[in-house]
């Protein structure tokens, strides 16, 4: 199977034909416009190695993300970055390529923090292996983490090894009333205290806090924070954008900014996560105005879901960084065949 993928890539490279790398297609909406012949990665599936005592799983790109999570859950383990699926068809390869993390990111770390190794087919059709299955590895440049979030533009992620965490034995969600500025202050202040907080969110004067960990610690923290207990399912709704906030036709912006930035006075409605570091905006504001507002607070705005992406999905890069990024792209994919334009606009 891997040989046939390599063959296809070599063939496309020789013809300079664009390829669109695709798993279940659950994140087709993400990134700039798609083009090219589809390579469906779902045929290359399965867990290659999983030993719970190693806290590492290695699986092929086409592996169903929900099946993988079920397997981990049977062993009371999880993907600590809580990746969004955005559909039942989500695959592990797509998850890594998108590089998106869920509610637990502010406390546990980002997806890329848990990538230990990848097997990659580059734009020459070579099968390459970087990193490995061990926790610490500084041999060579950290290519496996560069691949995370590269949206399939550097190569076909054939296999990936991830660090896991034990599933917290106890988890509860609290809801408190707080206006936005107060909520931002509370979230950041709590994050500086040794509390077992695993997620925070704010929307319409409600502040939600999830506590995860050993039962006595969660109980003690819940008493300190106060508020009323709500269903933990709230976080699934935020992670998967099934929550009512995400409904409606307005473009959805993903605003990334320093967590302590004061409330952003923008047209539309906002839902805040990650102690204030991630703010979702449903708004019809012009793209240039959103991007300018974020630039002022040293953040950046991604046009996450929108019918019209002519403004570009991602915030523009500084010229030096853009040059470096294009050179890296060329190092992995000299013929420029992988998902052209999806991350860096085509020129």
């Amino acid at each position: 199977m891997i040989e046939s993928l390599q063959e296809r890539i070599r063939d496309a490279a020789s013809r300079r034909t664009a390829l669109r790398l695709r798993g279940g297609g659950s994140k087709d909406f993400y990134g700039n416009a798609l083009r090219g012949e589809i390579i469906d990665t779902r045929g290359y599936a399965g867990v290659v190695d999983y030993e719970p005592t190693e806290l590492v799983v290695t699986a092929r790109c086409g592996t169903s993300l929900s099946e993988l999570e079920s397997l981990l859950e049977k062993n009371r383990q999880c993907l600590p970055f809580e990746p969004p699926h955005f559909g039942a068809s989500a695959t592990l390869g797509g998850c890594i390529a998108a590089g998106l993390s869920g509610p637990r990111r502010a406390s546990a770390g980002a997806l890329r923090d848990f990538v230990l190794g990848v097997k990659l087919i580059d734009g020459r059709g070579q099968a390459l292996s970087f990193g490995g299955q061990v926790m610490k590895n500084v041999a060579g440049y950290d290519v496996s983490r560069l691949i995370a979030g590269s949206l399939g533009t550097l190569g076909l992620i054939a296999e990936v090894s991830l660090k896991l965490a034990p599933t917290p034995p106890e988890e509860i969600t609290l809801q408190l009333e707080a206006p936005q500025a107060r909520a931002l202050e509370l979230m950041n202040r709590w994050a500086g205290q040794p509390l077992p907080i695993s997620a925070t969110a704010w929307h319409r004067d409600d502040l939600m806090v999830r506590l995860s960990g050993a039962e006595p610690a969660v109980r003690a923290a819940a008493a300190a924070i106060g508020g009323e207990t709500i269903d933990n399912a709230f976080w699934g709704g935020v992670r998967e954008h099934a929550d009512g906030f995400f409904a409606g036709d307005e473009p959805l912006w993903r605003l990334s900014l320093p967590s302590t930035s004061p409330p952003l006075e923008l047209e539309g409605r906002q839902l805040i996560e990650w102690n204030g570091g991630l703010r979702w905006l449903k708004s019809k504001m012009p793209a240039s105005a959103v991007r300018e507002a974020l630039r002022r607070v040293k953040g950046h705005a991604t046009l996450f879901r929108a019918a019209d992406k002519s403004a570009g999905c991602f915030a523009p890069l500084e010229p030096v960084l853009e040059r470096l990024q294009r050179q890296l792209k060329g190092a992995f994919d000299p013929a420029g065949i992988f998902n052209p334009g999806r991350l860096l606009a085509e020129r």
Partner: protein
Amino acid sequence: MGSALPVVTALREFLPERAILHEEEDTRPYECDGLTAYRQLPMVVALPETTEQVQRILKTCSALKIPVVPRGAGTGLSGGALPAGDGVLLSMAKFMRVLRIDPLARVAVVQPGVRNAVVSEVAAPFGLYYAPDPSSQIACTIGGNVSENSGGVHCLKYGLTLHNVLGMRGFTIDGEPIELGGEAPDAPGYDLLALAIGSEGMLMVVTEVTLKLLPKPKCARVIMASFDDVEKAGAAVADVIAAGIVPAGLEMMDRPATHAVEQFVHAGYDLQAAAILLCESDGTTEEVDDEIARMKAVLERAGATRMTVSLDEAERLRFWSGRKAAFPAVGRISPDYYCMDGTIPRKRLGEVLTFIAAMEQKYKLRCPNVFHAGDGNLHPLILFDANDPDQLHRTEQFAAEVLEKCIEVGGTITGEHGVGVEKINQMCVQFGAPELELFRSVKSAFDPHGLLNPGKAIPTLARCSEYGGMRVHGGKLPHAELPRF
């Protein structure tokens, strides 16, 4: 070797005389880093004090096509800061300022010459600390930590340098300013921050680092557990993880290591034990009490012969003092020692330990072992006398065999010390030609003329084929006059 004059003349245009060293008596202290077996006098040492000076040094050197080797405190163990004889050693030692602490945002913005331990000291009044704690933390700098992606004894739970750096500013070899990452999460485009961390100073020169600070746990306690068998201790490590516990620290030392340490720091280690585990829990008082009880039960079932739980902070620090002093302690029982840094899957620990014991017999050299057992990172310490060329040669062979064993069991040749010049040959074993070629093109994207820290970390294919030839012949190495570790 080129003359120092052109570059010295060019640097004098913007650097004060005290910031340029080129007489041998002045450059001698820079001839090596913590890997003292490799030495090379730099042509010139530059000691800039401002970022503008760094930028101009880089512009000057890239225009003159002169290699530049960045250096922090020089505590690295893989020769990553070994100077280039025809180049400029760029010491970042004067960049010692903590620029900003933001307790609410939990970040510290520091210059690269700030020592690792200083960050936690300045964060302490706010109840915060910086998690990565390499053993050399009182001396090593943040810039060096970033270059090597340094770890420490708390990585399993809190991660490496990579997981605790939010952003960096610096320059490319051409002196172009670049800013990677930042306080806003998930910077657009490829994750160049992840790529630059651990790149051994070969992609950019860092002038400012934004670090993530964590709340200092209310409480931490450590269990010291004794085992009568090294493999049993290794199995106990896996049992702790299998029980769903991620200890804050999980370290192992074998008997030769505890004996060396005990003479040096009197940490109170069990000298009868074949191996001891230090197993730490941190968090709220409730969490720690709960976790310590669970870990004790697991260790008991795994066959611990004795367990002591630290009663107070002084005792906890005393238990750790031995582990943190392991390298200098070993330095006192042997004229020289050679520290390895392989990482292996935890489940292969017993097998690798048995292999190391066999190598001790084969090469007639002693080798105490200290490990970051929780993350499978081994630091076997081969004891030798560098004045005896045969011992030196046997040590090198010993180390090469152990590193290649690490690769064979699915591990890596370096967990946290870096490849530098030391393990460059083993890179040829760990990676194939296509991966090495890709590393070279990554390097070229940042540094097309290969001027920044040349000859480190990524071997040329020619070097690999020469090393392949050496391995076939075994025993006698060609170019015996070349220092190799």
